[in-house]
């Protein structure tokens, strides 16, 4: 496997343009400029590249939705909002190798024929955004951005936009509203952004990592990309592991590496004396996987097959020192807090779930409450305006299945056996974050 996204991570500082180019940076443009756009989109489809923002949608297919005679201007919007607990991959590239982003954006913009690109950066990544801004300026100064880039006839500028905050800004249509200066409420779909996006114009929204894979695919070919993966996955991916492991971090590994390799070989395994109870494979909105599923290849289809989602590939570990209910409660509290407040089931349903989980911790829950959680999850998930709330209830539904006995134990024992009630309640009030997973 060849490192692509993290190939420059060993440098102490982000590379300046000259050094980046000396290492082959921007060479991919030679394989892109002048080539037929449709052919490149087809190659992308063949490569098996799938969206790294969580949904894993085929990037080539998404790009093919852009009508050939789409009204101008066409926009490319890069989603670098990365606010889901457990996800911290885009941050690494932003802080350590911003030219990789510029190159990815430029390559992708050329292929879709975008007139302008926006990079929407999570508000907390302010320092990183400044680094990216600097790289963009270097690229402009060198004629890699601007009018008639390298004599190709193609013109592009990149606008780096620092988000005003909140997780929901990462939902692509909420992101577009935020960029336009409106409240970050998601829009109704259809129309999809490819038809009617930023300022009503055709817009492609992609995760940062997704576009960063594009230059090498174009340079080295779809087959090369496929060969980078394992066990049925294509390409590499920036996996993340957080929680009670010895070596938490971000690892560029073949798509399809097994969970066991990822957690034990790369992240160093659990802290001494800890036992793996479950893990979320792709960020805080993904259903739990259990130790018996450790040999599952970490790629979209394999993880989906066992009933979870690869999401962003941000693994969060749950060990035997934390109450699974408390862990789940924390997740749901995060989503309740990050709800944009637009639709009823999410805005008012998630706090209701938090309340019910609190009853389990405080020892006042009954079997009826257990039943109510199950029932409400089924009514919230499929009936919201956007995908935030479905992502919020998925781990809860999974916890209900996996930890059924824990719910019952909490009812019988009138509280949590993991920690005294008083401490839990005060922690609850302080809104303690998910272990290892909150930024």
């Amino acid at each position, binding site marked *: 496997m060849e490192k692509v996204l993290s190939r420059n991570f060993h440098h102490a500082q982000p590379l300046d343009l000259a050094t980046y180019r000396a290492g082959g940076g921007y060479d991919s443009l030679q394989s892109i400029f002048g080539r037929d756009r449709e052919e490149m989109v087809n190659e992308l489809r063949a490569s098996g590249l799938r969206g790294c923002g969580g949904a894993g949608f085929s990037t080539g297919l998404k790009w093919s939705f852009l009508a050939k005679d789409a009204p101008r201007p066409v926009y490319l919007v890069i989603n670098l909002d990365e606010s889901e607990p457990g996800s911290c991959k885009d941050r690494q590239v932003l802080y350590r190798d911003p030219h990789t982003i510029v190159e990815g954006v430029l390559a992708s913009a050329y292929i879709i024929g975008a007139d302008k690109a926006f990079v929407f950066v999570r508000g907390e990544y302010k320092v990183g955004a400044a680094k990216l801004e600097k790289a963009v300026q270097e690229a402009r100064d060198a004629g890699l951005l601007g009018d008639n880039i390298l004599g190709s006839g193609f013109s592009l500028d990149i606008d780096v936009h620092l988000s005003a905050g*909140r997780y*929901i800004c990462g939902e692509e249509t909420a992101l577009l509203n935020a960029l336009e200066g409106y*409240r970050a409420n998601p829009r*109704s779909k259809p129309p999809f952004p490819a038809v009617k996006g930023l300022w009503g114009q055709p817009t492609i929204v992609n995760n940062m990592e997704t576009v960063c894979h594009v230059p090498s695919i174009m340079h080295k070919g779809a087959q090369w990309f496929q060969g980078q993966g394992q066990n049925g996955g294509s390409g590499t991916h920036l996996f993340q592991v957080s929680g009670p492991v010895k070596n938490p971090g971000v690892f560029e590994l073949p798509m399809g590496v097994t969970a066991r390799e990822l957690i034990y070989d790369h992240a160093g395994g659990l802290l001494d004396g800890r036992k793996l109870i479950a893990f979320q494979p792709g960020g805080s909105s993904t259903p739990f996987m259990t130790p018996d599923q450790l040999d599952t290849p970490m790629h979209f289809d394999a993880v989906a097959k066992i009933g979870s989602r690869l999401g962003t590939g941000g693994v969060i570990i749950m060990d035997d020192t934390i109450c699974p209910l408390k862990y789940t409660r924390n997740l749901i509290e995060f989503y*309740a*807090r*990050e*709800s*944009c*407040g*637009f*639709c*009823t*089931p999410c*805005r*008012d*349903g998630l*706090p*209701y779930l938090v*309340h019910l989980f*609190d009853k389990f911790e405080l020892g006042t829950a009954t079997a*009826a409450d257990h039943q*109510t959680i199950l029932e*409400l999850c089924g*009514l919230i998930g*499929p*009936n*919201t*305006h956007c995908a935030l709330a479905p992502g919020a209830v998925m781990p809860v539904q999974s916890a209900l299945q996996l930890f059924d006995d824990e719910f019952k134990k909490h009812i019988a024992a009138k509280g949590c056996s993991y920690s005294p009630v008083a401490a839990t309640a005060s922690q609850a009030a302080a809104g303690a974050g998910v272990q290892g997973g909150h930024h």
Partner: protein
Amino acid sequence: MGTLYIDDQPVEFQPGDNVLDAAKRANIEVPYFCYHPALGAVGSCRVCAMETVPSREGEQPRTVMTCTLKAQDGMRFRFAQSDKAPGVSKTMVEFYMTRHPNDCPVCDEGGDCHLQNMTVEVGHAYRRFDGQKKTYPNQLLGPLVWNTANRCITCYRCVRFYQDYALGDDFGAMGSRNNVLFRRIDDGAFDSPFAGNIITVCPTGTFTDKVFRRKYSRTWMLKKSASICAHCSVGCHVEPGARAGTLRRVVPNENSAVNQYFICDRGRYAPHASEAANRPLQVKVGGQLRQEPALAVLRQALAVSDARWGVMGSAREDVVTNLVLQQLASDLNAPFTAFTDPLTEVRTKTAVNLSLSAPSLQDIEAADCILVVGELTEHAPMMELAVRQALKQGKPVMMLHAAASLLAGMVRKQRSLQAQTQAPVLWAETLQKLISSLSQEQADGWAALLKNAKAPVLLGVAEVMPTAAIKALAELAAVLGEQARVGFALPAANSFGAAQVSQAGSSEQLLEALERGDINALLVVGADPMSGWQGERWSKALAKIQHLVVVDHIHSATVQAATVVVPSATVSEHNGVFINYEGRVQSFAKAYSRETQVLLQEELIALLSGDARARVQSQLLSMLGSVMPSPGSTGSRIKPATLPIGQLAEAVLGNGPALVLQGWHGEEEVAGFATELASLTPHDSVGIAPAYAKALGLTLDKNSRLTISVHNKQLTLPVSLSAQVAEGCVAVSRRAFAELQARLGDEVKLTAAMRLSEEPAAPSVVAHFTPLQGDNSNGGLRP
């Protein structure tokens, strides 16, 4: 057209329908909150659920929101038969109730509440949520609208009306998650003339009518009627509600051809003038209150032996009343007018003659290019709201005006350079220039926009437009051709009708007859000549006469000068017919009776001779046709013959600054007596453009004051520097006009007065609200 199926029942739909529209039309009672026919669907409440019936093998049934789903032929849903969909609706309401205070017994909306109805409909009867309810701070929003934030269910209707429909920007959604609040940034009254509609669109008791609240009744106990707003020439449909002989509230009455769903704040709150403490409710003769029937007193008063009568009707009284008065005048051998001011009469009639194909509000909304001449917001608010609909769709709106106007601000914001200020005396010339540039091959600017439009609309404000400008605007429409429509906001609710009833030059003739002493007695019904544009002339003339009999329902200056005052009914208290700016004949029905002795205008007919009564009937017939529209219907439009007008000299271009009217949207003769609305009247100031002040050699800032001298009168007012006031003009309020005894276009002298540095900034047009008593008590609802 197409057919979809709900519970196997075929449901027809129209193009553009969503599934909910179609279901509603088929009388299938789907619950909904965020959907509103005028505001559309956004899919925020998630209550309007149905279940799909899979059309293909392997497809799973899903719950879908019908309000955001476009209807397509052959779609199939389960609704009543579904075992999923009702549970979704019910659970959404259950979610609301985890925050909603369930304070229906003390809520103004109680019993007339969409949330209450839907809660019962979906069957959420018992609460299982046993947590604490979140509470939210209420906001003080001025004298008209009351906020109880806990009751909000976050359907976004209010902000969708306020921002998206009415283009307001001082109210919006703030915060996120279960902490979204619909508020202004600062406490205080709304900037928008349409703010009261958030009460109408809110499906809960979050926004309620603050005036109603102070004299509250459960709404099912109100006496209601289908009425017409009496406060401008648009003629919006309203429903007054009264109880125990007093008016409690006014709400819009839905209709398809005029104002549809909404009314302006003037229309909603001006009718409360009927409850003003100083309203004449008893007959007064020679300053003495009498316990006598109004009609008898009037009959006696008219029977005095030494009187040579004149009769004045009014453009704010209905058609029948004016016809009756005209015939009464002929019985009395007296001159008659329905206008208090000769200039207004000429302008009104000129505009009426040119209004025969005036655009309806829907035509205005659908226009692809609009030219507005004059400050439309301040004269005909709902007509202006129709303009905003076109503006919102990015259609070019151009505006020629002389004083600050809310619309002008909006036009400037959306499209630079498309609002132009100019002194009214120059408007005709500007329009003529536009006409000649239309004929040029290479029309540009406004001419190009108008020429390229498929459905251009030209709107003028008759009261402030010189007759030459009125004619030029109509000529412009004629030159543009068939597709162009021109209409005018007229000075009062029944200006169109009043114009039909009076002879050419009638007000000037009446005034002159008074001034010459030909008549020594005047009967005035529903007019206040002493406060109008010719106030000073009328005051002088009326001071000389022995008999001034005034029939009215406001404590006007003319009422105060009367020898006999006969209290009359407000529009909600009697039946009648108004003709709106388009010539649309609309009748209104009495909602309630006052328990005191007020004269119903329709009783005046008793004063007529038999012949005269017959003439009233035949005139009505020839004017309106045989079918009188029923109250609540939007009637049909009449196309009367051209009215004779006569000649009148108008102001010409002078050397010094000319006075123009700085109106505001809550202003009208009767509205001034509605306490709460009138409390929002902007502070008096003199508006002048900074550049023009400089050209006059005046150094002004926001603490400066200016003295205006006209004729022999002087008035010193704080300065309001505004680029929205035309060069060559200074803008003052109607009150200042009255005080100065000045007329539109009068030339004035300006002198800078002492600058008061300690004074707060001169107030701008935006109203400042002084809290009324009672604002601190919110019925114990504050969390």
